[in-house]
């Protein structure tokens, strides 16, 4: 049944967007987390979205309709979380407890403006997935009243 698949697809979309929202929250919370070396400093994290391909491959001998549907993806997946390789910011703060020998403190490469737009985008996408699921739910509920 295709319509129940819409639930799964919307579910993967909501899951992916909530992971994206989580990384954004983590990035903003750690925007000022300093350290004395580049290796230890927090780096902005971004989710890596990919199409979730259908697991079911055997389409031979099935309906042509099913054939078409087997070409569609099954939603979206988070293939991984990648750290941004943007340059880290160094600031001269010799009185800071985490300052290195030369008096520099390393700040994360989190761009707060970028994170805020990302946050808006992901919350809108999340809403869209919820809306999609609601529509599919109404369609299914309608179908259940067939012949009544």
């Amino acid at each position, binding site marked *: 049944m295709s319509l129940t698949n819409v639930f799964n697809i919307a579910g993967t979309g909501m899951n992916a967007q909530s992971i994206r929202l989580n990384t954004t929250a983590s990035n903003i919370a750690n925007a000022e987390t300093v350290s004395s070396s580049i290796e230890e400093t927090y780096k902005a994290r971004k989710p890596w979205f990919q199409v979730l391909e259908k697991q079911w491959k055997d389409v031979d001998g099935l309906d042509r309709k099913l054939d078409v549907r087997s070409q569609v993806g099954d939603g979206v997946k988070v293939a991984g979380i990648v750290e941004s390789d943007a340059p880290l910011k160094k600031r001269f703060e010799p009185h800071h407890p985490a300052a290195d020998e030369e008096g520099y403190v390393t700040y994360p490469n989190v761009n707060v403006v970028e994170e805020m737009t990302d946050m808006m985008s992901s919350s809108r996408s999340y809403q869209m997935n919820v809306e*999609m699921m609601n529509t599919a739910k109404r*369609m299914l509920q309608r179908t259940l009243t067939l*012949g009544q």
Partner: protein
Amino acid sequence: MSALSFKNSLGIHPQTMQLRAARAEVLANNLANADTPNFKARDFDFNAMLDAESRRSLEMNATDQRHLRGNVNTDSELMYRNPYQPAIDGNTVDTQMEQSFYTENALRYNASFEFLNSKFKGLKNAIKGQ
């Protein structure tokens, strides 16, 4: 065949609803991947598919194995959408357009449902004979 058989009396509406549900899945996948880099939005030609679906019942009967099969061949391939505003990350999902297609598809699904429902009501009336 009697007119009361399901195949004859329900018309094209069961196939339409099935196709609408299949299209809902395709469009839902587009919407879920609205932020996926390099994802290309896809869709199928609904009218062509429905046409193929209704013509499939007109396939010729072969009473001898030497008879030619009058198969109706149609390409029921998923196609890629031409984006209005392609994104820099290679994504071609126009969220607003996909959302409007999805809503339209749902409405048309409901319309087909109404038709099918009234067909069933008609059959019920015929059975009761009141």
